[in-house]
């Protein structure tokens, strides 16, 4: 429990900009590399979730050509990890991973993305896992899998999984235009059906089931790498129960956008109830907000990255002025001031001389007016290794979000967030639908009200770059010392506002 200090709204620190957290490099025993050449120029995911039952996130790291690894979290005040032996998660050709409770048994499972056949690993407890792909009727294809998202469709007793795949890796001379199929797996009664192809497929590097229009039925956003598709663009699919997936069309308002799509993250930044989306790319980052939000809104987005100072288009330290390359994106309130910040992992694809080789990660702190301020260097996370996947999560339970970044052909980096000079409170919330298939309430909206300001986050399984988390939903409160929370559950039921303890993790059960 942290002690509260008086709110200093007019303090010099706030007048000068957001408080900058002090990240301290603290590997805590994690010694791991994501390695490989062409087939691992993308990927490099990390998964953060509790597999040991101590409420601290354990860390799974993809390895590419090296074995993947699970690290048990032993942190106290300092970060500390121990490599799990014989966890069942040690495998090769892993590009990323996303935790989720597929069978709703209360033990988190793991979707493991591979160059080859992906796997569904069932959690057995005490950080042990078994390959349940066959048991659950999951029929993986031999693909270069690069993206994943999951949801529970209305009325379904089994999750719906989307796997995105990249290039036909047998094409060496002319791989362009050879994007392989994305696959949608639905199931019932503990078994997945044969997958449905999501045609056309355009080489995604990130996918996200998200209730973009607050209709109660999440759609599947897909961010595609224009380097490899022909005739492609960014996509969004209608995924309605018992209906074939169907693309959003221009007639519905979907506007064509073609980028080097590499990562997606979302957050309701402007408080209008609808999520904004950040899309990482090369040389520029997109920050999308609905052009006309409202009950009948269409999926037409304005790019406000330039206006908000979130383009993150080139290195902000060092001598290089070449364009930047963005991968994992994640919104999280790293300074607990009540405004979601944006972390972007950066790194050259593979010695591309037109792009920065020493490309620092970005930590864009959000100001109260909705603009962003770069603080990666001041916060201590401006690593110029070749970043790919990442996770911002409270690894030691102190209320400050820590950071893990997987680098390609370089050491995985871990930073403990030592907090800011400005006192700030926080709340962590765990929505739970015990006894129901969607136990962890994917696509629920968790709202926190302090004073007259409401923050909200959608519970998501997917997005980022090959990296997923199943951890409490974290909100910063700034100096506020009281707050209420509620959950709008995936079926649309609005939970009642309930007071929650600040600087504590609180469960919200349906």
């Amino acid at each position, binding site marked *: 429990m942290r002690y509260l200090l008086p709110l200093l709204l007019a303090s010099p620190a706030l007048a000068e900009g957001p408080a900058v957290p002090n990240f301290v490099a603290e590997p805590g025993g994690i010694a791991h590399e994501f390695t490989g050449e*062409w087939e691992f120029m993308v990927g490099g995911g990390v998964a953060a979730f509790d597999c040991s039952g101590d409420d601290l996130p354990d860390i799974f790291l993809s390895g590419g050509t090296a074995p993947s690894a699970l690290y048990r979290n032993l942190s106290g005040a300092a970060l500390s990890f121990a490599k799990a032996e014989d966890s069942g998660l040690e495998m090769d050709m892993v590009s990323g991973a996303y935790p989720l409770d597929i069978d709703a048994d209360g033990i988190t499972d793991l979707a493991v993305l591979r160059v080859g056949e992906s796997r569904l690993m069932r959690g057995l407890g005490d950080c042990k896992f078994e390959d349940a792909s066959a048991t659950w009727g999951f029929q993986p294809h031999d693909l270069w899998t690069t993206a994943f998202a999951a949801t529970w469709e209305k009325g379904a007793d089994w999750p719906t999984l989307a796997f995105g795949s990249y290039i036909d890796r047998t094409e060496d*001379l*002319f791989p362009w*235009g050879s994007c392989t199929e994305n696959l949608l797996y639905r199931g019932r009664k503990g078994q997945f059906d044969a997958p449905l192809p999501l045609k056309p497929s355009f080489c995604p590097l990130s996918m996200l089931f998200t209730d973009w229009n607050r209709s109660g039925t999440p759609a599947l956003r897909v961010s595609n790498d224009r380097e490899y598709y*022909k005739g492609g663009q960014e996509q969004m699919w209608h995924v309605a129960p018992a209906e074939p997936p169907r693309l959003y069309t221009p007639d519905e308002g979907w506007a064509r956008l073609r980028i080097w799509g590499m990562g997606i993250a979302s957050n309701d930044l402007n408080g209008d109830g609808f999520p904004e989306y950040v899309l990482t790319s090369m040389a520029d980052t997109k920050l999308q907000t609905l052009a006309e939000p409202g009950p009948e809104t269409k999926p037409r987005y304005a790019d406000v990255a*330039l206006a908000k100072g979130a*383009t993150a288009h080139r290195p902000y330290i060092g001598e290089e002025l070449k364009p930047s390359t963005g991968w994992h994106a994640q919104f999280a309130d790293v300074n607990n001031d009540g405004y979601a910040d944006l972390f972007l992992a950066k790194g050259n694809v593979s010695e591309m001389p*037109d792009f920065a080789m020493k490309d620092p990660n970005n930590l864009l702190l959000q100001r109260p007016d909705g603009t962003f301020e770069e603080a990666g260097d001041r916060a201590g996370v401006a690593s110029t290794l070749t970043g790919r996947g990442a996770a911002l999560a409270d690894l030691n339970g102190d209320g400050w979000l820590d950071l893990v970044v997987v680098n390609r052909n370089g050491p995985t980096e871990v930073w403990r967030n030592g907090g800011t000079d400005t006192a700030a409170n926080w709340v962590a919330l765990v929505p739970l639908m015990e006894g129901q298939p969607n136990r962890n309430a994917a696509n629920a909206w968790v709202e926190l009200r302090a004073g007259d300001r409401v923050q909200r986050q959608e519970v998501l399984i997917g997005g980022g770059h090959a990296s997923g988390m199943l951890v409490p939903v974290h909100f910063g409160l700034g100096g506020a010392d009281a707050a209420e929370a509620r959950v709008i559950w995936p079926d649309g039921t609005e939970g009642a506002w309930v007071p929650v303890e600040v600087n504590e993790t609180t469960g919200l059960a349906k």
Partner: protein
Amino acid sequence: MEPLSLTLPRRKFLLLTAAGLALPLRAAAATAISPEAVISSWYRLVLELVRHTATYSPPVASRAFGYLGVTTWETVAQCNGLQSLAGQLNDLTPPPVSDQPLDTAAVLHGALTAAVGKLFENTGPTGQRALQAMVEKLGAKVADGLDPALAKASLDQGAAIAGHILAWAATDGGAVVENMGFPQTYALTEGPAHWVPTSPIRMQQLPLLPDWGKNRPFAMKGDLPCGLPPPPDYSEDPASSFYSEAKEVYDTGKSLTDEQKAIARFWSDDPMLSPTPPGHWISIFLQIAERDGLMAPQLADGLARVGIAVADGFIACWRVKFEYDLLRPVTYIRRFIDPKWDPLLITPPFPEYPSGHSTQSAAAAAVLTAIFGPDFAFEDATPVADGLPARSFPSFDAAAEEAALSRLYGGIHYRAAIDRGLEQGACVGAFAAGLKTL
């Protein structure tokens, strides 16, 4: 210009090729692959690399096509005893010669390996992988059945020719492109008539390649060749010519037919999403070459002339763009006609007048008309892989005019930029058409 030698009627042209006019003069042996196949294989890859190399905006792409075309021509010319472009192109000296017997296909493979490798040295890991696969797989075919000493001598000679062309290329002013062509600093011209950024992309807040017009041209001669008169006087008066031109863009955009949309998309040729406008015209020539079975000298001649024409087209066009520095339709229309107007196509990040696609399309059409004749019908399937249907044209001029008009439909150019661009392209193309080769 030598119209008799260049403006061959199609029937006569094909007769010449079938008669074997282009038999290698100094070939010592035949490889398992023809010189034509070597050229077309490399160019197929180049059309992909142009699309997938981040610096390859249309002007940069045109430059590469210019130097690749010259490399291809000089190689074929040397192997066949044909006229070199040395002395005809600005500052180009004769490439080195070999006194050994050579195999044309192997020399071409050596030349294009070196030239493509250098011009696309900045391409990404997938492009590098494809380059290596092309070198190895095509190299194996080239070497199949060839005496190893002859193969090596031929490959070395190809590399020597390419090295000579690349050394010449290094001095033209366009060899180094940084920050994807966007300057780190640049003072925008003040005043309402002038270009302002139109894109929310951060690096596009300054215009693309403002000094490109200072590059050394390939074939254009003289001081500031192919200049243009100024665009209509800038005015905000609804009765003015300038307003009328903006209104035409707006009204056209508001009432686009399906055919007009199809034309705009067909010629959109966006960088990083297509072979770019110059690549589109190289693709047109390659489709005709394949259809009609052109022999290596004709194939190399066409690639050189089209490459030179589009490269010079972008140099001439860019010089005028930054001379007048005119604002784009989207800027004017949103200021004075409709603040919510959006064009169909993405507005390119540089000044408006004249239209680059118009200039370079007319330049390419001029040389292709000189080669094949004025009423040469063809089908163009360049964007078919991107899901667009092929289009047919009765002549190269018709295709160039449609490409130019596509920019009006796309909402990114006024009429004057299109019309004057076509005129500028005809001027530029005449220089390339006048080169002595076959």
